[in-house]
């Protein structure tokens, strides 16, 4: 009865959780800039959650270092379904300038399915909002798919 409403709401109220996987802090600042009054991500329903249990979208910034790889994967596992994983900036997608460094543990897509890649070094707040908006639409699709498969993905 409420399924349609819940599916629509999934796209309208995406809560973010931000993981810094060894970032230079550039993308972290730009993500927060996207939430400030100038860009106002809250008009689309975005909100920064304090814990991965509350989040719908996990935003990963920074190259995945060998030290933090397991922690990132564990944090993503703590996020309840349906969830979206967004990489922000060039580092988690390709390794950027850290690619040949010894602590680099590979792109995030090697370990989990990434839904949206936001490009840029650092990504601009406009691009961040665009990418997060796309992730919110994917969230609605995932919720529909989850319902059709009886709560499983």
């Amino acid at each position, binding site marked *: 009865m409420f399924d349609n409403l819940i599916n629509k*709401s999934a796209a*309208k109220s995406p809560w973010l959780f931000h993981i810094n996987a060894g970032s230079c802090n550039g993308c972290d600042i730009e993500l927060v800039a996207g939430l400030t009054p100038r860009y106002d991500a*809250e008009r689309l329903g975005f909100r920064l959650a304090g814990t991965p249990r*509350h989040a719908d979208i996990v935003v990963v910034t920074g190259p995945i270092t060998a030290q933090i790889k397991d922690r990132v994967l564990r944090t993503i596992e703590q996020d*309840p379904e*349906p969830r979206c994983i967004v990489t922000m900036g060039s580092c988690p997608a390709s390794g950027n300038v850290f690619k040949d460094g010894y602590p680099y543990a590979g792109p995030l897509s090697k370990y989990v399915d990434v839904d949206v890649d936001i490009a840029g070094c650092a990504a601009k707040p406009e691009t961040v909002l665009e990418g997060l908006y796309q992730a919110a639409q994917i969230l609605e699709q995932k919720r529909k798919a989850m319902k059709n498969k009886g709560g499983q993905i």
Partner: protein
Amino acid sequence: MFNWMWLFYILVFPGALFCFVGGTLLNGLDRKVYAKMQQRIGPPILQPFYDFMKLMGKETIIPYEANKPVFLGAPVVGFVALVTIMLLLPQFGFSAFGDINADMIVIIYLLTIPAASIIIGGAASGSPYAGVGISREMVSVISFELPLVMVLLAIGRKAGGDGVTFSMKAIADYQAANGAMICQWSMIPAALAMLLVVPCEVGCHPFDVAEAETEICEGPLVEYSGAPLGVFKLNYYVKQLVVSGLFAALFLGGKGTGIVAADAVIFYVECLVVTFFSMTLIRASLARLKVEQVFKFYWTVVAGLALVSLVLAWFGL
């Protein structure tokens, strides 16, 4: 003995449905006004409703360490307590269950149950962050209880004439006869104290030490996800309505129009005004206080304001 109207009161107005719709709408308007104060567009007014529906559709993860029945039952207990308070609040001439002697004391106890449900739910989740959160929540409950009781005593004395009355109906009748309580000059300090008690009771921003999401990951709610978290969020919205409604019933009463529906609309508008002054305005202009600052502020400044009114009321002013 059983009256079918009671079922309507409990389920529709002023019970569960009114609390749900009124609370989400109140929180949506609060967030919209808050956004306008920061010169941005802000979320749609139905945003809290979307948040609630989305959380209902999410997966519910129960941690291995948690005590399952307590973990899932705590938010529901809080919601039921809040709806019960709403049933006891008189709206001008109308009150759902008529004249209950000493219902003010019931309200004092029921107001701690939502906080207690957060404490119990957090303790059942078995997370260390929740442990820090519940100790902070306890401190904030102790902080606002003393001024709240003093405000209620002052009003009870004022409305009671010779003795002290603990009946909300008697207070509503007093205001219908003598005009709103806030117009009595000796009650203005108590009204200010109550305005400051409201945000701490709700757990609104400058006083949200228990759920500080930037410090301790939303404290007691850290392990909650899906539907139980949705009910906790709903509790927050309904708490805004109920506590501002308590202020409206205590200080902004009056004759009313005599029509229940019109009175309910006026009551809701009063709740909006109280929410604006006590929550939105303070939230937009202040940063979060530390635990000991909250405690000190409530036991000195706010309790002092309430004491002034209490003494004035006791001398019959």
